[in-house]
């Protein structure tokens, strides 16, 4: 059982999708929506500032999803990245994993519950990591 809410940030450049993900996160009892961004640059800034537990990161971003993931992990190593994409082509998946994402979801097939459990799993593994010095 968690002692506190999971702090989640949402990054997606398509407004309809971003607002849906934001509502999905805020609608969950144990999630705290700490911020949202629509570009890689904004995402990195957000992560550096707020140090969320989990970032839901769209792969197709202005500035690049992989670029964003690397920046987030560099700035806030305890932040775990859940990559989410319209297409789960293997090239994109491996690129995101190489950039530090801990899991990958495909928008077409992933249900609301899939997204929620992915966030929870990501938060749990973050807690297992030793704190950064």
């Amino acid at each position, binding site marked *: 059982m968690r002692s506190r809410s999971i702090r989640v940030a949402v990054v997606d450049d398509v407004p309809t999708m971003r607002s849906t993900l934001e509502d999905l996160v805020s609608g969950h009892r144990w999630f705290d929506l700490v911020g949202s961004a629509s570009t890689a640059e904004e995402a990195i800034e957000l992560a550096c500032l707020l140090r969320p537990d989990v970032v839901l990161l769209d792969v197709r971003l202005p500035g690049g999803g992989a670029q964003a993931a690397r920046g987030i992990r560099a700035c806030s190593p305890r932040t775990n990245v859940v990559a989410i994409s319209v297409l789960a082509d293997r090239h994109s998946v491996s690129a995101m994993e190489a950039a530090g994402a801990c899991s990958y979801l495909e*928008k077409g097939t992933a249900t609301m519950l899939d997204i929620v459990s992915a966030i929870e799993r990501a938060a749990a593994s973050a807690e297992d990591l030793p704190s950064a010095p």
Partner: protein
Amino acid sequence: MLEAAPEHGARPHDERVSRQRHRARAGVGSPGNPPPGTPMPALFEGQLALLHACVLEIARLHDAHQVINKGLDCCLELTGSTAGFLDLLDEDRTHREMTLFMGVEVDPLFIAAHRTIPLQRSVAGVVVTEGRIKLSNQVTSDPDSSGWPDGHPEIRTFLGAPLQGRDGVIGMVAVANRADGYDQGHARLLGALSSHLAVAIENARMYERQRQTISGLEGRQAELSATSARDAINARLRALDQLVAAQEEERRRIADDIHADSLQVLDAAILRLEMLSRRTSDAALQGQISEVRAAVGDAEDRLRHLLFNLRPPAIDAPQGLRLALHDHLERIGEASGIRLELDVEVSDEVPIQVRLTLFRIAQEAIANVVKHAQASLLRVQAGMKDEGIWVRVEDDGRGFPVGHGLSPAGHFGLTEMRGRAELAGGWLTIRSGEGPGTLVECWVPQR
């Protein structure tokens, strides 16, 4: 032995005429040109026949070299001489080019040193400079003589005639060293033949010029046709190439749009419907929401298919051909019920255009199998060969009769694909009907 006489007779008219009559009775002509009005000595029938024969032979030739050779030969024969030469003037008409010697041993050094001779007063020179026949039976003491250069063959008796062209003297022909000397009869013969010879030489030159002009024109026309045909083909190929590139670019843009917006929006709608469903415990309402969700899901699926068919996103990666084919077969696989095999070994350096061309060809071939073949196995292979990439798509299904054109009715896609392969510098073949199944094979250079 006739005595030498100066060309310009200084003797009184009467004396000359009487000498001529005397010589005519003796059967020999008088030296030098007779004054106008003097009857010319008669030519013997034999001489006339020979002249006639020579003129005919020369008239049949149109090669300048042959004309000159035959001409000089005839001159020697007609005048009973064993030695002679033929000169043609250079283009400026300031020098004689020593064109041809016959019957004389000439020191090669002499020939080399006197390839051209400036026109000047000399026994031979006056023939050209004054345009008249020169006859001399004692050349060394002739007033026109200016001596011999070293190596010049000895000339004792001499008869020369100008070659009169349309616009003036073009050269001369001369015979020499007849033991009994030359007379007016010989002069007349040589005069007659040299007139014909001049005409023949000019005709031969004109013939040669025209032949060269025609040859040049034909050459240039062939070049032009070849060039313009080549240019036309290249222009068309470039246009086709641009068309294909524009087509692919449009597909990429549309795919990007679908990718960017439409699919995502539908996905967002599906998520929201899920979230909505959780807000109620009303089973009926949940049922309705589920229906809506299914419909939207169906739309999303179709759009996704469209996107992949339009332009597989994986094609952009270095191993794009393999990845795109893999994704494509994956999407087909379950629905079709066909066993699928994929074996692709290509380098990372394949340009995107080539990847796309090969993907489209394979895509079309695969579609045909799925639609018509009733196959149980579909195998797609690709590899590198001869600085290009080959792709094979084969199945074990029905096959179709190939022969009337590339494809039977409704299979025009493969004809188009062959066009694409050839436009890219490659080829495409289909084998079917010789046994079970169909084999589509293509190759495209890597560029």
